[in-house]
């Protein structure tokens, strides 16, 4: 096949894009030095992606993404096809060849488990399609898996980010808000990079989530007839079956026998009739693994076929493909004269075992079929030399081999008391108090005090007098009595403290009723503003600290933007506070008007305390207090660092 060549411009220089004769490298040679060596050569095996302008666009460009061994980031090369005759055709020729070569290179990748060469041994109809499905699965999964673990790829994948933003409304709100309110000096690209680099985990999760598909399932078992009572009571109720097109194709691929019957009979029959008869037939019951009741209507077509054909044909093919002889039970059977001798008869796994329990066989065969469509996790045991070792290993009875040495990471704990040697550097207030004390005096005091406990004369304590609670005296304390232990005043204070903390606790436990939607009496709308402002502020804080602590002078300019963004965050909080205050005033005004109305109607005055309307600036300030604190802290640290460099923030920004 002739290797196509395209007249292209690369970096505004004309040249020719083509492939080397061995079809391993893409080369571009400038026309100014056409005879010389190519200035650009890309190995096909390193090309990760191709992009082409759509056919509708006049400009024809091809972008090749190459990932060399050392760099994690794919580098893109843009070629502009500018041939005077037919640039589109040239571009297509090169692109088609390239994509074929890339696909080949990927499928020959030795790192990949190769799908069995199923197409070579067609046993039943449809086996080819199975193999090709498996094949497609392999090629896709390779690039996908690699992408999932590559932070840079995730960060650069704008389509993925868009789809995540679409899926997560909160995140997208935050993104938009952050983007809107970022300082102008910060570029969108920069903001994007920051935003996503803090959320690689979300991206990865989303990529994994969106790359997963539902696997095949036992369709026939899912298709169940529904008894629909006829509107006319005199007639019999009808059985209805709903089958979708996908389900039919799945049934076909899972039951090659049915596909064959369909092929052989459908021209005379029409499709609907075919399925109608099939679902009523004995065969359908048998394929589902149900026991025929004997009440099925005899069917000329379907009764001809034996469901074992479906079961055995596939399993023998599967065995031939995948089971190495060393663990091939059917092979053993041939060697040892069947299962009549030796071990107890196997019931479940016999290809033609108990006909009275048909479900075992159908289920087994179906499971095998389903699994055949799935990408194999293990290597094909027969594919190459050396792999057989693994098969042997699989066969060994591990529990006969004694204890395996444990491969654990040792955690050596050193005696902790070692660190707590002697000195306790208690530089606290109490330590200061204690240091002023005279130990002997202290002891003597406590001893004396203990001895001074009021005795009741019989070796016990006169508790009543010790408590010094005098119920009589306190009723009229005009003259303040000496404060003492158990005085009314002290008891009152204690009671108040306890009641207060109970109130506090109660509010924590049960909250104020509507606090879920309107925290601290803020209307829902303003509460959501608060939420959003908080989230964006946290986002900027996050970015600020990661830049600030990186100590990377390259990020210093960026740090400037971020510091500015923090300053603006405070303004934004202020705006929300003003908004909340306005809302609260409106509420108050409304309530006042209501009261006036009531007064005019009924001549009754309704008491109104403006304090009963919560929310407003106060609530916002309270909610945002920690954020404001952290903003101040960040700003102060930044100022300090600037000061250390001998600069004023204002001049720099």
């Amino acid at each position, binding site marked *: 096949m002739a290797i196509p060549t395209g007249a292209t411009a690369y970096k505004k220089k004309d040249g020719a894009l083509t492939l080397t004769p061995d079809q391993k490298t893409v080369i571009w040679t400038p026309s100014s030095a056409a005879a010389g060596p190519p200035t650009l050569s890309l190995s096909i095996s390193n090309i990760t992606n191709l992009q082409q302008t759509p056919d509708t666009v006049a400009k024809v460009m091809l972008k090749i993404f190459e990932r060399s061994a050392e760099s994690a980031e794919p580098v893109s090369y843009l070629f502009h096809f500018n041939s005077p005759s037919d640039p589109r055709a040239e571009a297509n020729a090169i692109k088609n060849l390239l994509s074929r070569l890339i696909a080949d290179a990927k499928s020959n990748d030795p790192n990949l488990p190769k799908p069995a060469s199923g197409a070579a041994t067609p046993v039943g109809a449809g086996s080819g399609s199975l193999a090709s499905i498996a094949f497609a699965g392999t090629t896709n999964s390779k690039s996908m898996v690699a992408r999932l673990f590559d932070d840079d790829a995730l960060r650069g994948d704008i389509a993925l980010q868009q789809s995540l933003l679409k899926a997560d409304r909160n995140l997208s709100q935050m993104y938009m808000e952050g983007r809107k309110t970022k300082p102008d000096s910060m570029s969108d690209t920069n903001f994007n990079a920051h935003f996503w680099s803090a959320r690689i985990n979300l991206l990865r999760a989303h990529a994994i989530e969106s790359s997963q598909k539902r696997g095949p399932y036992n369709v026939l078992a899912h298709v169940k007839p529904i008894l629909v009572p006829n509107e006319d009571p005199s007639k019999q109720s009808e059985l209805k079956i709903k089958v979708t097109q996908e389900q039919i194709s799945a049934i076909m691929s899972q039951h090659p026998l049915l596909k064959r019957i369909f092929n052989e009979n459908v021209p005379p029959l029409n499709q609907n009739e075919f399925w109608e008869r099939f679902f009523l037939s004995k065969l359908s019951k048998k394929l589902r693994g149900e026991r025929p009741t004997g009440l099925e209507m005899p069917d000329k077509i379907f009764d001809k076929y034996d469901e074992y054909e479906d079961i055995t044909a596939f399993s023998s093919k599967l065995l031939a493909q995948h089971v190495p002889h060393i663990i091939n039970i059917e092979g053993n059977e041939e060697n040892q004269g069947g299962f009549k001798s030796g071990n107890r008869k196997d019931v479940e796994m016999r290809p033609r075992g108990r006909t009275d329990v048909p479900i075992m066989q159908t289920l087994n065969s179906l499971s095998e079929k389903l699994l055949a469509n799935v990408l194999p996790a293990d290597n094909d045991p027969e594919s190459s030399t050396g792999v057989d070792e693994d098969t042997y290993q699989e066969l060994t009875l591990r529990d006969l081999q004694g204890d395996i040495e444990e491969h654990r990471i040792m955690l050596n704990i050193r005696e902790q008391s070692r660190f707590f040697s002697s000195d306790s550097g208690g530089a606290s207030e109490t330590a200061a108090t204690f240091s002023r004390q005279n130990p002997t005096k202290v002891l003597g005091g406590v001893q004396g005090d203990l001895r001074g406990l009021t005795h009741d004369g019989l070796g016990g304590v006169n508790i009543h007098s010790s408590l010094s609670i005098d119920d009589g005296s306190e009723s009229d304390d005009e003259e303040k009595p000496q404060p003492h232990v158990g005085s009314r005043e002290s008891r009152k204070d204690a009671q108040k403290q*306890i009641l207060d903390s109970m109130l506090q606790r109660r509010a924590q436990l049960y909250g104020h009723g509507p606090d879920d939607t309107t925290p601290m009496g803020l209307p829902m709308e303003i509460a959501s503003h608060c939420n959003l402002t908080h989230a964006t502020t946290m986002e900027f804080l996050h970015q600020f600290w990661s830049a600030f602590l990186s100590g990377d002078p390259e990020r210093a300019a960026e740090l400037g933007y971020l510091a500015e963004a923090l300053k603006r965050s405070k303004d934004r909080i202020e705006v929300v506070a003003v908004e909340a205050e306005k809302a609260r005033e409106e509420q108050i005004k409304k309530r006042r008007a209501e009261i006036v109305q009531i007064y005019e109607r009924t001549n009754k005055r309704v008491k109104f305390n403006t304090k009963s309307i919560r929310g407003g600036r106060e609530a916002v300030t309270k909610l945002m207090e920690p954020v404001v604190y952290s903003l101040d802290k960040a700003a102060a640290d930044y100022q300090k660092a600037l000061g250390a460099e001998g600069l004023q923030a204002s001049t720099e920004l």
Partner: protein
Amino acid sequence: MNRIDASEHYDESGFTGQTPSLLTVVIDTNPRAWAAIHDLLPISKAIANILVFINAHLAYGNENQVAVLAAHTNRAVWLYPVSPNPEHPPLARRRNGSAKDVEMAGPDHHGHRPREPQLGTSANKYPQFAKIESSILASLRSLIDSTSPSDLNPTTLISGALSMALSYIHKTSLAFESPKTSADPANPTTTPSAKTAVPNLHARILVLSVSQSEPAQYIPTMNAVFAASHARIPIDTLALYSAPTFLQQAAFITNGVFLSAAANPRGLLTYLMFGFLADVDARASLVVPTQDSVDFRAACFCHRNVVDTGFVCSICLSIFCDVPENAECLTCGTKLALGNYGAKPAVIPRKKKKRKRVNGGGREETGSATGTPGPA
């Protein structure tokens, strides 16, 4: 039988249904701290108040029990019930006595005989109350008397007292368990499934704290706290002086009550009766007063400082106030990767003019999300 003696009308379920409650009081007997608040609340008054509280607890139920411990500056001592091993305290005292010299062994010391609880025979006092009272007083006096000035550390061994309290609670709950299981086959009509779910003993620990938490005791204290939390034993704390950080955390972790009466220690009895009398069962249906803000700071493993931000070993979770030497975890020896921590924040671009150009060019060219590699 029942019919004959006409005792049918007694509904015994009301009595058997009551789960005994064990209150373990740990009294912090740090003499320095008590001396410091002597003017506000002398220890003698405090003891009297605690006795009232204990009596109230006992009066609540026939099967209620109490245990009292002293967390002293150099050891933890049982005040009630008295240690079954009576050899120990006199021995210790004798050793102390021989070690110290005459100045300490005054006539008072010799004349006092702490190990003989004289039962108060006052007719006005319930004998069990009197017994507990005299035991506590005698043990406490002997404890204080046997303390020498050199023992006066600034803080107490609260972790030891907690461990002793926990082991006592465990022992007691075992004692309650055996008769129940043996009784079960005798009357199988009782619902065994419900019984197993209900604990046979409601235990709680009340710490009357006057000293600050010592960071050195952080690990043992937390171990005790987690054990208590596992056994569903709340640790309540009433702080009369200073701020026992770890006990605050203990109350939080074990669902206990933490109250600080440091501002008003004279109201001790009210605090006790109002805040701490309810047992675990009753608390389920009460709103308990507890401090809403908890000091969650931990002590670092290297210098025993209480830290608010620090470093945690990713392998063994040891806490450090500063990067340990060679970035090697002191406990498990793991080499810790610090990333680029400690880098001096760079606030000024290195070469301003050049950088601007590079930045602009970079944006034009790539348009990708990643930054442009700058000048090396």
